[in-house]
């Protein structure tokens, strides 16, 4: 069932996950659904619990939609610089790379 999703679909799932996380945040703290939204690092809008919730929500959607089980925050990605978790756009690219790695050769 696995297939590499295009960017539009990835953002669709990413924003759905953002909707889920926003339900857990006070109105003033909710994050915008736009590619440039900063997540971590300087100016980042999510704390560690928020990032955990967001990443797990995305992973669940990937599993439901693509039938593929991924770990977005592994040792390698956590040590990358710049961080793939810096913004929604960098996270979207990271998701595509991770899913692509899961494709059969």
């Amino acid at each position, binding site marked *: 069932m696995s297939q590499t999703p295009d960017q539009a679909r990835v953002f669709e799932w990413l924003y759905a996950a953002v909707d889920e996380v926003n339900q857990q945040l006070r109105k003033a703290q909710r994050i915008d659904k736009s590619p440039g939204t900063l997540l971590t690092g300087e100016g980042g809008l999510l704390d560690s619990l928020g990032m*955990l919730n967001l990443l797990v929500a995305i992973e669940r959607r990937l599993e439901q939609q693509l039938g593929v089980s991924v770990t977005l925050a592994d040792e390698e990605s956590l040590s990358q610089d710049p961080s793939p978790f810096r913004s929604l756009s960098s996270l979207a690219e990271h998701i595509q790379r991770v899913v692509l790695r899961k494709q059969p050769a």
Partner: protein
Amino acid sequence: METSLRCLLISDFNAQNCAAYLENDEDLPAVEVDVGPFGQVMQILADPAHAAWRQRPDVAFVWTLPQRLLPAFQRFVDHQTVTVLEILGEVEQFAQLIAAASEHLRYMFVASWAQDPGVRSGGMTDWQPGKGRADLLARMNLLLAEQLAGKSNVVILDSQRWTALAGKEAYNDKLWFQGKIPFNNEVFLEAVGDLKAALRGFLGQARKLIVLDLDETLWGGIVGDVGMEGLKLGGHDAIGEAYAEFQRALKTLTRQGLVLGIVSKNDEAVALAAIRQHPEMQLRLDDFAGWRINWDDKARNLVELATELNLGLQSVVFIDDNPAERARVREALPEVLVPPWPENPLLYRRALLSLQCFDTPSLSEEDRQRTQAYVSERQRSELKRQVGSLDDWLSSLEIVATAEPLGAANLARATQLLNKTNQMNLATRRMSEAELQTWGSQPGQAVWVFRVSDKLGDSGLTGLASLRVTADQAHVVDFVLSCRVMGRRVEEIMASWLVDLARQAGAGRVVATYLPTAKNKPCLEFWQRSGFRPAEGHVFYWETAADFAKPACIRLTVANLPGFSVHPLGRQSHRSAAGDPDGCIPNATANSRGPGGKLVSENSLHMTATPGGVP
């Protein structure tokens, strides 16, 4: 209406997600949430001085995982040697801490313990008595419930329902190992829904009236087009069976105190004939408190119906298959709950029974008989049309009002009345059962309730009045009457009772202070026309040297409560069978007076004023 509370969330897992959903949930009441420090459940419960209680919450919600809370249960899970008694002993200790902590709260909620459905614990041995995990969890939950049954402000919420609804998605190992969050958000959302429903129940904000459309809602088809014979209802047809089951579910709800109404665009005679005569109707006319069946706007009809039934729009749920009608009512009457409704009638019953707006902490006989009360009211209205003056009509009803002191037998219903009544409510105090009982047992303070019946039916416990005597004044603190019996001069009987009590207690004056709310203007209007003299600041007073005239159309009796007496300082106790040396003999059925106007042979309240007053 109370709209916000403060809640302390106590847990042995990371409950921040739950706290966030609870705080962000837009259904009333709003809840401000503090989360207790992680993994200190027993410490927080055992110590009222713990920092977690610093914000003085109104409510606490305790949610634990049994293997983390109870060491003996963890040993059981690990297949180490442990007895059921050891495990249940720990449950008992936990229950005792919950009970003690609840003394400092208005309400306490405890989540029951659930199994992770995704993990097979014992397989075929899961229900072996004393050996299987499912069996043990059931015993633990039952013991917890039994231990807390006597605490009226403690409720156990069914966490198994939340995890069952989420199914395979209930537990999330990624969240657990990375954040000590055991559940996916679906579980937390269900928990918040049930918690809010229970809070509304305690606060008297549960919905009471379900207003239903007819065509394609209570039955399949349009009765005006296909006739009664052409309706899909009952029989061996899946759709017909589903409609019949939906009606049966509604009927079950009426036995839990809910009332039904109809708002339908139809020819009234045709619709009523179908309700009366269709052989598969599960609901008949006497199952409905009222109806508006015509071609007028449904929102306007709904308002008229609610007004006729003396219910506010915040008590109403509107169910209609037509999305346009639902949208119209939602827009015109935002206080009415209009739940999303499935297109497929096979799903109606489940949609009805999944609503979280009907929870109440207790069910009284009055609740069970509520629909019958409305039917009787229809008969009273019919009688009124036949009789001339108001007093003639009231006399024809042969109304009896029975006064009785607040006690164990009537505490639940009295508290429910106090918390649910808005219109005829002097001070609109909201109290838990424990708070009301404590208040009424203080020296110089007493609470009386009134039952009202007439020849057409029993309206039940529908009045409550409380008095506080300070120096030579008696203050009416609560004066509450159900809208069901408003306007039948029961108000005057209650006022006269209070004047008599005050005189007996040696007070020279009865003072009632009206506290305005958005809904209790009828109470002000009563006191303004009562004959009590007005003073500044919505204060009304009566000099007890003068009698307050009792309306002749109501017979006042006093409840015969064997074993009950009132001590001079207002403390209640049991009396011996030999009689009460304090002179409180609750045996009278007539309101007779001795010399000096003192009540004799009544259940006299001997109250002594406490110097400086009681706060």
